[in-house]
């Protein structure tokens, strides 16, 4: 019986994913209403639960030799939940993010170009600077390591792309990916709590937010938990961030950091 159920769940993995995610969202909205009287948004709780499940799966998902797998894909490392990997993968993520553009009002996009561009450049440069400074403080004092860890502080894609281009050590690459993951997760969790104090309540500030923070998953999650209406604005700028980071990191920014290191 159990093997029958499991093989069905594996075979119908995307359907399983819809069911599991739906139940998680439902539980989260109940918790939001009962425990926090709606003060913490249901979607914020759902995203947090997702991260907790991802951690537990990373730590305890069974591996092939009876030990733990310690995989990289969160709950998607469990065969019956592999469909969640597809649901949360790049293809459906992009489809859904683009669909949110339906809620965009054209007049709100006018005169935001300069704002968006400045936020993107500031976001990339500041993140690299902070990552490089932290790397320096922890004894990684060569320009390649500083730039790579700086890239990780931009996003977990910019870090390893920069590191690979510059020939960073695998230890530094791992650090840089971890820094990017911390950033992405923290943005998802913290955004709804700081939204009010940083004025994140209108399309323009959401656009700036997306450009400054840049992590697509983090921005998508953080804004969804704050106000779903703001998602398309943040997503629109964040989508340029990783590309700009990968472009500037191994070139201009490496060059600048080399002058200091």
């Amino acid at each position, binding site marked *: 019986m159990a093997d029958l159920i499991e093989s069905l769940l594996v075979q119908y993995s995307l359907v399983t994913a819809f069911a599991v995610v739906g139940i998680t969202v439902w539980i989260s909205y109940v918790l939001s209403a009962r425990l926090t009287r709606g003060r913490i948004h249901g979607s914020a709780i759902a995203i947090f639960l997702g991260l907790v499940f991802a951690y537990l799966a990373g730590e305890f998902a069974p591996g092939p030799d009876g030990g733990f797998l310690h995989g990289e894909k969160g709950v998607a490392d469990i065969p019956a939940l592999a469909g969640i990997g597809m649901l949360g993968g790049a293809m459906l993520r992009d489809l859904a993010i683009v669909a949110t553009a339906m809620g965009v009002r054209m007049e709100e996009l006018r005169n935001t170009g300069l704002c968006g561009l400045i936020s993107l450049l500031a976001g990339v440069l500041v993140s690299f600077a902070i990552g490089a400074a932290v790397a320096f403080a922890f004894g990684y004092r060569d320009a390649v390591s500083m730039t790579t860890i700086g890239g990780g502080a931009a996003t977990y894609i910019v870090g390893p792309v920069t590191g690979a281009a510059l020939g960073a050590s695998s230890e530094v690459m*791992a650090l840089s990916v971890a820094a990017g993951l911390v950033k992405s997760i923290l943005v998802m969790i913290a955004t709804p709590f700081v939204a009010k104090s940083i004025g994140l309540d209108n399309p323009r500030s959401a656009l700036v937010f997306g450009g400054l923070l840049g992590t697509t998953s983090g921005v998508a999650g953080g804004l969804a938990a704050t106000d779903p209406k703001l998602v398309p604005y943040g997503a629109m700028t964040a989508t340029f961030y990783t590309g700009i980071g990968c472009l500037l990191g191994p070139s201009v920014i490496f060059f600048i950091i080399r002058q200091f290191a």
Partner: protein
Amino acid sequence: MAIYGTALLSICVIIGTIAGKLLGRLLGMDANVGGVGIAMILLIFTTHRLRKSGRLGPQDETGIAYWNAIYIPIVVAIAATQNVRAALHGGTAAILAGILAVVVCFALVPAITRIGGTAPPRR
């Protein structure tokens, strides 16, 4: 029909992604630069046009509205597939770099929002 809306959405995503990859290649890297943003702008313009000329009805739009509505569950799935273990095991340097980057960028949001225009109206 709903499939018209979903097809339009999908075509925008495909064209946007191709444009993003071409832009990436132009800049000399194997990455998608702004594909989602380009797709969004395409979708905004085409639906605006088609709606005006009466060729995109409310029934067709349900095919886009569904994916818009399924967005939060997809974000939950994204969260559930993050490598949280690696983030927490990354060591102090990684955690500190991530936290500081977030804190400083959060703090910059109001400053940059004020650039290029008057204070935006509160919604």
